[in-house]
């Protein structure tokens, strides 16, 4: 009886829309309702390249990463009914990373982490570049860009305003790729602090 229900739900979803157009959350709740493995698989596979890439980063090994993603598939399948998952992508990203770190700790014999004062503050911040700017914002942005160190200013301008890729910027400026990444990161942080100060005055 349950099976028929889940098939109905699955076909219903398929008929209603192309399965690619269904949101993560919709797929997830349908899976939890019906237990249809195909719904879960469709959801999981959306993030296969991302998960595999993250594992490559941590494990630096093709086969180990392959196995890790396979394990995560079964892990997540077990965990999903137990955890109220709000944002599947974010949650999966954390699960993937933790899984890989767990493997690293295991292979490093008894690595264990004792954390004191570990806190994370990670507020998303978007530059007022794409948004329509007020006159005040535009003035502040121009000012803060001008006071940035030259390399940071140049990298930020090319990356955020001229839509150039890292590789493009290497070609234009001749800077080292890693340097460009850190110019952009630091520049963005400086810009944010500067804008915050100027606009809240």
């Amino acid at each position: 009886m349950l099976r028929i229900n889940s098939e109905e739900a699955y076909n219903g979803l398929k008929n209603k829309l192309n399965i690619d157009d269904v949101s993560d959350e919709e797929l997830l709740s349908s899976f939890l309702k019906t237990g249809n493995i195909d719904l879960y698989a469709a959801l999981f596979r959306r993030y296969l390249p991302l998960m595999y890439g993250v594992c490559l980063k941590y494990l630096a090994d093709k086969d180990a990463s392959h196995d890790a993603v396979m394990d995560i598939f079964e892990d997540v399948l077990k965990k999903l009914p137990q955890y109220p998952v709000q944002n599947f992508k974010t949650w999966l990203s954390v699960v993937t990373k933790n899984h890989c770190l767990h493997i690293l700790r295991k292979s490093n014999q008894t690595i264990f982490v004792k954390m004191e004062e570990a806190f994370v503050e990670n507020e998303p911040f978007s530059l007022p570049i794409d948004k329509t700017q007020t006159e005040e914002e535009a003035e502040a942005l121009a000012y803060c860009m001008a006071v940035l160190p030259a390399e940071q200013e140049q990298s930020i301008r090319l990356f955020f305003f001229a839509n150039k890729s890292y590789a493009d910027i290497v070609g234009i400026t001749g800077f080292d790729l890693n340097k460009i990444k850190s110019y952009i990161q630091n520049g963005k942080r400086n810009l944010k602090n500067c804008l915050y100060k100027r606009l809240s005055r």
Partner: protein
Amino acid sequence: MTKLEDYIQGKRHGEEANRLEREAIDDSFLHDAIDGFDALESDHLLDIRNLDNDIETLVEKYRKPRIKRWRVVAVAASVALLLGVGGFFFYNQNSKIDRPIALESKASSVSSSENKTEPAIVERTEHPDRLERIAQADMPKVSPGKPASRLATSDIAPLIEQKEDASEVVLGAISPLAQNASREFSDSLSQNQLTANKHQALGGMSASQTSFNQLKGKVVDESGNPVVGASVKLGGTNLATVTDTAGNYQLKVPDLKHAGEITASYIGYESKTVSAEKALSIQLQPSQLALNEVTVVGYGVSKQKTLVGAVSRVKAKEQPTFAKKEFKDYFETHRQKEMCEEKAAFVQFRFFIDESGTPTKLEIEKSNCTELNNEVIRLLKLSPKWTIRNQNVELEIRLK
């Protein structure tokens, strides 16, 4: 996702690439994934496709149990039915049929085993028997007159072993007969040819044995290129040769069939010993031991005026050290660029360097950024081996 695939494949220019990179700045999932793909060279798309296929197989496994359960039930039911019906008939006819069948089957198994073993035994017992007559050698425990057909199957194995013993004893006995042989090598060679001939004369069992006794093969390096001038030696003997310009070698061996082991060696490579049957292609791996020092030593005493050569000492470059400072540099160059919003992100940790130079037992003492901790764990794992051994290390890293 196709955007990401393009990017992985190296399409790094233009607005599409920029859009993905900007997305990655706010999306650590994407960011880490790109880092991962960039860190390793491989056909990532193919690897992902393989992974996808394996996931599909896994999904299939989860779909199956329902069907399987039905199958198990069906099979169990039919087995039960068969047992029931069969048991009924069996029980009814048991007393009448039981004995004759049992007897018959015993008889047939006995006769069949005899049929199989008989010819082999005849051949093999004959063999030592005739050799014995030639050499008049003493062969304990073998009773040649014993009729083969009376031997039980379990007797065959020891008999074959004894045969081997016997023929070796015979060889020893023949050697005085090979009067013209002056050197040990030609001795053993001619012995072998003698035995080879005899094996054939006796309708012998050594079809694989050639009369040349040349072991041929090739020595290659780790990437399959021929190794020129590698020495190839037959284990336990003085028989050796070197490979030619194509890496090939030919080695005359006394007994091709029982040649034993062959060792190939070459400077800068690990010596490799393989059994002669597998000696067709020997692959050497580069030696892990560093050639620290090559000292050219002269023997004998030379007067100053007769000494024309030069003595020099060449020291190999020192292995670069990898310790605290180097790790900090390594960390700085390899760490993820965008992390830790805190202004003064830091981590204090300690760990132990084991005897192989690998960090273990990491303890994070103090930290104000989880991302930083994770990077420490990741890069401790990936970094080169430390050049210090068996030591505790304490370290603090502050992000600039």
